[in-house]
């Protein structure tokens, strides 16, 4: 691994000040993606600013019909939060299926969403629930957040502080893991928000996206079969040694179908 300067941030402002000062600094939350990348000498940050001490960014609040999760909240905490389980059980299911138990003790929601890994789980929920990404500067709507492979709407000097998920009437999340990495080959988050249906898909494309065809079908009939019979176009979807774009497209329908069943309490 290359050398770097290590800093502990004492506040969001302090973190961003240190980041600005660094020639090529990186924020590290749980480090579950960044550290393996650095170990393989694929990243060479000059400075690492550790957000681990920012207790204010940790925690879950349910208020005004929203579940607000601090950026430094660990997957383990979301998966086991009684509040989350009650308000949006599918979100707890999703968090409880990220990586493995050891990863869930370290990985954070902020780190996951800031990275926009094409096969991370949270992006499906962010889109599926129509969450709001809160940063030190502004609030970003889910629909304008994911820009592409490892690309988001975050600007330089901007940092996620929390993610606010509107409580849905009912929701479900199903993922089909890639057999080796266990990341989502396809993950589908389905939500009946009360004011419409949203379907967030991760793993299938270069970044998370909404499956509008399935949303339309579910708006007519919120049933597993309505989702399962939608044929998703494979154009533009990922294709690799683990599965073709056609297979991924097919899995989107199947996972959507199962997510709806879960949402309906099945």
């Amino acid at each position, binding site marked *: 691994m290359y050398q*770097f300067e290590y800093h502990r941030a004492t506040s969001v402002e302090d973190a961003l000040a240190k980041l600005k000062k660094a020639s090529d600094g990186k924020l590290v939350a749980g480090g579950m993606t960044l*550290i*393996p990348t650095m170990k393989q000498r694929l990243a060479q940050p000059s400075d690492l600013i550790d957000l681990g001490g920012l207790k204010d960014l940790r925690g879950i609040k349910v208020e005004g019909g929203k579940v607000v999760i601090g950026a430094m909240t660990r997957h*383990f905490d979301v998966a086991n939060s009684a509040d989350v389980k009650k308000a949006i059980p599918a979100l707890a299911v999703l968090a409880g299926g990220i*990586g*493995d*138990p*050891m990863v869930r003790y*370290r990985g954070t929601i902020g780190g996951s969403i800031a990275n926009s890994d094409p096969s991370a789980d949270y992006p499906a929920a962010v889109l599926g629930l129509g969450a709001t990404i809160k940063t030190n500067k502004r609030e970003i709507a889910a629909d304008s957040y994911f820009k592409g492979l490892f690309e988001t709407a975050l600007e330089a000097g901007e940092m996620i502080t929390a993610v606010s998920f509107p409580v849905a009437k009912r929701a479900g999340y199903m993922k089909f893991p890639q057999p080796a990495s266990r990341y989502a080959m396809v993950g589908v988050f389905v939500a009946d928000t009360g004011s419409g249906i949203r379907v967030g898909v991760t793993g299938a494309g270069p970044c998370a996206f909404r499956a509008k065809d399935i949303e339309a079908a579910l708006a007519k009939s919120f049933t597993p079969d309505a989702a399962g019979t939608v044929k998703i176009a494979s154009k533009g979807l990922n294709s690799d040694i683990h599965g073709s774009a056609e297979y991924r497209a097919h899995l989107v329908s199947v996972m959507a179908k199962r997510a709806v069943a879960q949402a309906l309490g099945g």
Partner: protein
Amino acid sequence: MKVSMTVNGKPASAEVEARTLLVEYLREHLRLTGTHVGCDTTQCGACTVHINGDAVKSCTIFAVQCEGANVLTIEGLAKDGKLHPMQESFKENHGLQCGFCTPGMVMAGIDIRRRHKNPTEETVRHELEGNICRCTGYHNIVKAILTAKM
């Protein structure tokens, strides 16, 4: 950088480079070589230790991030020469062969049983997602974790 933490109940401090991973600190600075490295991608789990009571992969955290932490490794489990019930159960059930993944399996197993008092076989298998064994076909590891007297 200087880093201080408690390892297996004893204070330990040392001067380390920022890039020193916790597992490197344990193995090379403290010579606690029971914690192993089996991959580079945070998957095999051979390096699992407990940090403040949580099972964590020590290959994916810097030593300096553990400032002030309480770290427990495989070397710290047996007390006064008596094996921890999870170690005992691995021995009783032949839950290890080459022994390389074993420290991580034992540390993960303890964490699983802390979170699930009476787990099913399916739960244990699912919870072991982050630990890879190439010798046992998992059969006896699962049995060991299920039946450990803890």
